């Protein structure tokens, strides 16, 4: 592997995990990307994690919402991390 983007190129047509800004996570099949990391994913599951503070106890309440999208274009500038599926090589 010569450059980091090679890792993404090797993940075409594979399911990938994408960590985005604002505690959003995506899992889906990668069909396209460019040098900005704009992407098209299919069979996407998005998980949004929100933390609220309980007014009385001050405890942090973590809640996760998920939704499914058939085909999704993701703008690269919100992406923090991409992890390909575990490969046996």
């Amino acid at each position, binding site marked *: 592997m010569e450059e*980091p983007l090679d890792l993404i190129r090797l993940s075409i047509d594979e399911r990938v995990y994408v960590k985005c800004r604002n505690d959003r996570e995506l899992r889906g099949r990668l069909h396209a990307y460019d040098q900005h990391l704009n992407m098209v994913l299919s069979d996407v599951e998005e998980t949004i994690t929100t933390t609220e503070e309980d007014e009385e106890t001050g405890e942090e309440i973590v809640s996760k919402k998920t939704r499914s999208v058939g085909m999704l274009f993701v703008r690269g*500038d919100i992406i923090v*991390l991409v992890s390909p599926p575990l490969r046996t090589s």
Partner: protein
Amino acid sequence: MSSALPDNTSKAPEKEAEAVPENKRSPSDFLKAVLGRPVNVRLNSGTDYRGVLACLDGYMNIAMEQTEEYVDGQLKSKYGDCFIRGNNVMYISSQRR
């Protein structure tokens, strides 16, 4: 070229990145020296990624192996391979294991 410097021929060749004197090492000398080594990558969000630096490019996009994700110092998850988009990177530090 070393052939222009006869003195050099008697010495064992040193590793390129470490041949640069301490006070003249540039940021890219540092990056060359830590390639393939365990590093800690701190993002602007404060999240740390510890793993082996596989490669990086001019945008500071990073590919890492055997990566562990630490949020507030707590291990949150692990990735076999991972790609980090360069704009999120605050710093890369070398790490002893």
